[in-house]
C-alpha cells in the first residue's frame, strides 16, 4: 500500500512538472522575423520560457524513468510534449513554412496538379515521383492548401516514426525504461532536419517501419552456431546472458504472410519515391541476414530486385544522364568525406560555430552509442542486431556523395539504432538503476536539447521565409513572361513554389563579391538561349550569402551597380527584394 502511495506521489510530481513545462513554453511563445535571428540561428531568438519548458519536461521524464514501475502514461506524455516543443515551435513562431526546399517541393506538386503530368526531363525527382504524386492527388481531391500544412509536416513525421521506433527497440531489448529513453534520444538526436515536406521525410518513416518489422516480426533468435556468436565467444568478453525478448504476435498463423506483404510494399513504395532509401533498406536487411538476426534471408535480394527494376524503368533517363558522375563517387570515400564535411566548414564566424557544433554533436552522439555497446557488453548483452543496423549506413559513404549531403543521410539512417545504443549508455538494464543515472539523463538531455536547437535550426536566418518574400514572388509571376530565364545568386528564395516548369531557374556561378552588371550579363547571355532574362534578388538570398561569409557591403555594391546599369531595369521592388529585367545589347 505504501509502495503504491509512493508511486502515485512520484507520478503526481511528474505530471506537475510536465504541465508546468508545457504551460511556460506555450505562454512565452511569440512570433519572430528574420530580424530576431543571428548567424547561430534560432537558439538566440527563443524566449526563456522555451528553455524552462524543455527543462521541466525533461525533469518530468526523469521522474518517470526514476520510478521503479515506470508510469507509462507520464513517460509517453513527456515524449509527446518534447516532440511538440522541439519540432513544432517553428511552425508556431514563424509566419510561413521554413526552408527553401519545401517551396521547391510545393512547386513540383503544383506543377503536377496544374498539368496532370510529370516532367522527368526537368528534374530528377520526377523519376521517383510517388511522394509527389500522392501529395498532388491528395491536394487535388481534398482541396487542402499544402502551404498551410507544410509547417507541421516535421512534427507529423516524427510522430509517425515514434511507434515504429518503439517496435524496433523491442527487437533489441525487452526493457520499457530503455525503450522510452531510446525514443527520447531519437527526438533529441535528430538534428539533421530531413523530415520536412519531402520524399526523404516520408522515406524516413518507411525506413524505420521496414527495420522494425524485419527486426521484430521476422526476428531470429541468436544461436551459438552463428558465426557472430562464435567470434564474440572467442573474445575475452563477459559471458553472454540470454536476453528474454517478448515474442511478436506474428507467430499467429497467417499474420507472417500479411506482414511480409507489408514489408515488400514498404520497399516498393520506397523504391518509387526516393533514390537513396532503398539502398539503405538493402544494406540494413543484408546486415541482419549476415549477423543471423532475421529469418527473411532472401529479403535483400528481393529489395535489390525491386530497386533495380524501378531504376531501370522510371529512373532510366536520370541514370543515363548522370552515370559518369554517379560512378565517379563509387569507392571515393575520401573525396565524399571532403565534400560532405570539409566544404561546409566555412562562412561567418557564427555559421562556422554551428557547423562545428553539428560535427561535434554527431560525434558525441555516436560516442555515447559506443559507450552503450560497452556497457551492455559489460553485463553480457551483445546487441549484434542494433550494432549492425547502426554501422551499415556508413557504407553508403563509399558509394555516393549525394550532393555533399551524404553525412546527413548516414546520420539519419543510423539514428534509430544509435538512439537505442545511446540510451543503453545510461540505462543498460532495468535492474541496474540509480539516482546518479537519472541525474546524468537530465544533464545529458539538457545539453542535447541545446545542441539539437543549434544543429537543427542553426541556419534559421536563411531558412526562415517571410511573407514579404512570398508576396514579391507572386508579383514576379505576374510580371515575368513564361519561358523566361529567372536568375538568382543562390538557391535561397521561394521562386520555384509555383509555375515550376514555366521558367528556367538559374543560379549565377560567380559569388556576390565578384559580381558586376557585366559579369551577370555575360552569364545570362550564355544561358538564356534567346529567351528574356531576369535577375531576382531577395533578402533571403542576402541572408544566406551573409551566413556563407559574403564580405560586408558586397550585396549593397552589387545592387547599387545594378541600379545604375543601363542593362538592368528594375521591374518590381519591395522591402523584400528586387526583380531586374535584363536588357541585352542589340545585335549589330
Amino acid at each position: 500500500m505504501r509502495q503504491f502511495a509512493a508511486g502515485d506521489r512520484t507520478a503526481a510530481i511528474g505530471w506537475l512538472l510536465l504541465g508546468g513545462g508545457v504551460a511556460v513554453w506555450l505562454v512565452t511563445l511569440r512570433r519572430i522575423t528574420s530580424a530576431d535571428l543571428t548567424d547561430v540561428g534560432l537558439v538566440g531568438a527563443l524566449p526563456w520560457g522555451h528553455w524552462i519548458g524543455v527543462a521541466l519536461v525533461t525533469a518530468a521524464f526523469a521522474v518517470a524513468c526514476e520510478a521503479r514501475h515506470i508510469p507509462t502514461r507520464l513517460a509517453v506524455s513527456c515524449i509527446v510534449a518534447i516532440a511538440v516543443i522541439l519540432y513544432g515551435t517553428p511552425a508556431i513562431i514563424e509566419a510561413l513554412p521554413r526552408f527553401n526546399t519545401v517551396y521547391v517541393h510545393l512547386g513540383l506538386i503544383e506543377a503536377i496538379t496544374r498539368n496532370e503530368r510529370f516532367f522527368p526531363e526537368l528534374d530528377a525527382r520526377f523519376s521517383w515521383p510517388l511522394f509527389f504524386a500522392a501529395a498532388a492527388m491528395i491536394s487535388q481531391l481534398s482541396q487542402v492548401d499544402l502551404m498551410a500544412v507544410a509547417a507541421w509536416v516535421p512534427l507529423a513525421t516524427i510522430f509517425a516514426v515514434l511507434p515504429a521506433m518503439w517496435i524496433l527497440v523491442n527487437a533489441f531489448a525487452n526493457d520499457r525504461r530503455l525503450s522510452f529513453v531510446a525514443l527520447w534520444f531519437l527526438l533529441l538526436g535528430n538534428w539533421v532536419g530531413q523530415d520536412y515536406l519531402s520524399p526523404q521525410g516520408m522515406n524516413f518513416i518507411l525506413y524505420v517501419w521496414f527495420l522494425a518489422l524485419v527486426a521484430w516480426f521476422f526476428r531470429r533468435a541468436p544461436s551459438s552456431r552463428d558465426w557472430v556468436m562464435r567470434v564474440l565467444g572467442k573474445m575475452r568478453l563477459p559471458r553472454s546472458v540470454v536476453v528474454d525478448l517478448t515474442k511478436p504476435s506474428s507467430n499467429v498463423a497467417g499474420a507472417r504472410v500479411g506482414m511480409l506483404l507489408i514489408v515488400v510494399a514498404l520497399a516498393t513504395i520506397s523504391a518509387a519515391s526516393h533514390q537513396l532509401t532503398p539502398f539503405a533498406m538493402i544494406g540494413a536487411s543484408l546486415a541482419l541476414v549476415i549477423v543471423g538476426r532475421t529469418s527473411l534471408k532472401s529479403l535483400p535480394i528481393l529489395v535489390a530486385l525491386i530497386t533495380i527494376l524501378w531504376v531501370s524503368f522510371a529512373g532510366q533517363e536520370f541514370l543515363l544522364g548522370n552515370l559518369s558522375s554517379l560512378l565517379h563517387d563509387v569507392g571515393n570515400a575520401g573525396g565524399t568525406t571532403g565534400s560532405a564535411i570539409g566544404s561546409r566548414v566555412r562562412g561567418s564566424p557564427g555559421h562556422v560555430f554551428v557547423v562545428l557544433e553539428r560535427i561535434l554533436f554527431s560525434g558525441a552522439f555516436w560516442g555515447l552509442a559506443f559507450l552503450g555497446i560497452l556497457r551492455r557488453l559489460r553485463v553480457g548483452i551483445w546487441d549484434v542486431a542494433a550494432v549492425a543496423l547502426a554501422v551499415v549506413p556508413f557504407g553508403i559513404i563509399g558509394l555516393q556523395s549525394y550532393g555533399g549531403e551524404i553525412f546527413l543521410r548516414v546520420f539519419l539512417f543510423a539514428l534509430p539504432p544509435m538512439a537505442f545504443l545511446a540510451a543503453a549508455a545510461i540505462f543498460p538494464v532495468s535492474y541496474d538503476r540509480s539516482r546518479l543515472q537519472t541525474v546524468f539523463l537530465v544533464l545529458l538531455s539538457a545539453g542535447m536539447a541545446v545542441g539539437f536547437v543549434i544543429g537543427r535550426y542553426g541556419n534559421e536566418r536563411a531558412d526562415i521565409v517571410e511573407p514579404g518574400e512570398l508576396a514579391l514572388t507572386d508579383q514576379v509571376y505576374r510580371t515575368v513572361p513564361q519561358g523566361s530565364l529567372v536568375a538568382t545568386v543562390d538557391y535561397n528564395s521561394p521562386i520555384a513554389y509555383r509555375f515550376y516548369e514555366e521558367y528556367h531557374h538559374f543560379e549565377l556561378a560567380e559569388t556576390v563579391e565578384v559580381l558586376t552588371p557585366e559579369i551577370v550579363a555575360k552569364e545570362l547571355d550564355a544561358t538564356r538561349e534567346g529567351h528574356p532574362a531576369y535577375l531576382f534578388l531577395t533578402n533571403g538570398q542576402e541572408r544566406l550569402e551573409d551566413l556563407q561569409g559574403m564580405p560586408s557591403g558586397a550585396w549593397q555594391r552589387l545592387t547599387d551597380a545594378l541600379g545604375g546599369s543601363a542593362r538592368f531595369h528594375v521591374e518590381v521592388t519591395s522591402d523584400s527584394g528586387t526583380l531586374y529585367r535584363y536588357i541585352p545589347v542589340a545585335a549589330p
Partner: protein
Amino acid sequence: MTVRTDPGQAPAQAEAAAAAIVASSAAVLTILALDVGGPVRIVVVFGYLLLVPGLATTRAAGFLGSLAVVSLAVVLSLGIDGTIGMALYAAHRFESVLATILVVAVTLTMVFVERVVSAGRPLVPLEPPDDGPGVAPTHR
C-alpha cells in the same frame, strides 16, 4: 459466409470497423461526385486519403487497429494514393472522380480480403505485448 472475429474485439466491433471503412468510402465518393467544397471536403477527404486505405490494408494483413497501426496506415495510404496518382498522371488520365473511385476500390478490396478471404483468421496486435509493471525480466 464465415465472419471473422478479432481476439479481444467483439464480433460486433469487427463488423463496426468494416462498416466504418465502407461508410467513410461512401461519404468520400459522395463528396467528390457532388463536388462539395469547403472545410467538410478538406476534413473528410484529406483524413480519408491519409488514413483509411492503409488502415484497411493493415486489417487485411491481419493486424488490429491501434496507435502504432495508425502510423503504419499513414505510410501505406500514401503508398496507395501515390501509386494510383502516378498511374493516372503518367497516363495523362487524371480525373478527380476516377482517382477517388480507384482509391475506394482498393480500400473496399482490402475490406473484402479481411472479412471474406481471410475469414476465420483472428486479427492480432501489431505492438509488442505490454509487460505491465515496466520492469521486464531482461535476464535469466
